[in-house]
């Protein structure tokens, strides 16, 4: 029953706009699955996989950063970086993990005595690695 309008947009292009029956979102506080009639919600995203179930099967997209807006009739995911899962290669995944590690290093330098941003950056790396495990790519340490 595809009665949920799903949109996935990144700053550079619109990746998907279709009718879905359920959308699984990697929210900052945990995964959630939205179906039609969901309470209006806005959540930020952690790096992870958005899974869209529609009449023709299911699509998966890797998203990094951004937020999702859920209403009773639709889900819009605005991701800073988004790619169809198949287009994520080991190389591009490694590059993403490198970026996260670099951000962690900068955070450590900049906020020496403030745990907040450093923890956030560390969490970003672990989210990223977990996502890699989910889509079958390993992170080279």
């Amino acid at each position: 029953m595809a009665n949920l309008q799903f949109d996935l947009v990144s700053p550079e292009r619109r990746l998907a706009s279709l009718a879905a029956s359920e959308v699984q979102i990697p929210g900052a506080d945990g995964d959630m699955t939205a179906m039609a009639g969901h309470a209006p919600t806005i959540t930020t995203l952690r790096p992870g996989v958005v899974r869209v179930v529609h009449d023709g099967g299911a699509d998966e997209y890797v998203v990094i950063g951004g937020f999702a807006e859920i209403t009773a009739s639709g889900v819009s995911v605005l991701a800073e970086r988004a790619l169809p899962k198949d287009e994520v290669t080991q190389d591009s995944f490694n590059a993403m993990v490198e970026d996260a590690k670099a951000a962690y290093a900068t955070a450590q330098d900049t906020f020496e005595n403030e745990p907040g941003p450093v923890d956030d950056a560390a969490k970003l790396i672990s989210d990223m690695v977990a996502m890699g495990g989910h889509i079958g790519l390993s992170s080279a340490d």
Partner: protein
Amino acid sequence: MPSLKDLKNRIESVKSTRKITKAMQMVAAAKLRRAQDAAESARPYTERFNAVMAGLASGAAGSASAPKLLSGTGSDTVHLLVVMTAERGLCGGFNGNIAKLARQHAQKLLADGKTVKVLTVGKKGRDAIKRDLGDHFVGHIDLTEVKRVGYLDAQGIAKDVLGRFDAGDFDIATIFFSRFENVVTQHPTALQVIPAQFETADDADTTLYDYEPSEDAILADLLPRGVSTQIFAALLENAASEQGARQSAMDNATRNAGEMIDKLTIEYNRSRQAVITNELIEIISGAEAL
């Protein structure tokens, strides 16, 4: 009076100039289409983003705990002007118009006794700004190597700007770019990005959202992204404007070269005829003298 040979050389040289401008015009037209497509595909993101931000911002604006990126630092003495221009010239008044707008803005602020700092993106703008506002120049971001602006470039600029903001270098940031309307019209535009301003649509939907993790946390997370988003949109508008301006400038140049060739050809033919007439007169008067 130029000799026949000089004229012929000039005609040849104008002809090759025309060939170059014609080629540049066609390249600009092709690039313009791509730049417009890029600007087009970025629009959904920007629109949705701003809609959500406007909703969030109107809720948080009143509270004392509102992030500085939204409420400002409480003063407005130090202004950062981010002037975004092209890396290349030969595009009509495109770079000049943006620099002019920034200069006027800066002069008004200086007259009001404010401090002005200028950050430039794009080589041409840096040259123009350094000439007039050299003392206020604080930095330059180089995009010479970038063939097609991507979101990462915008993030880089935003990071630079936000870093300066966190360090307390300025209170208000304004970006200068050219909004693309069509091939012949581009509007130099100034847009304040810090503190963020969002247009609240009159028909804003009044849906009450649940926020995860919390409204404040989302706002704090999204405001810096908002700066990147606006800079990215501005970069794309700029790219389209640049190609549009170049296309019309080169179109004009091609037409002018054509007119010049016509004029020179007429002059060339006249002098050629004059030379022939002269020779005839000499022969005839020589024959008569005998």
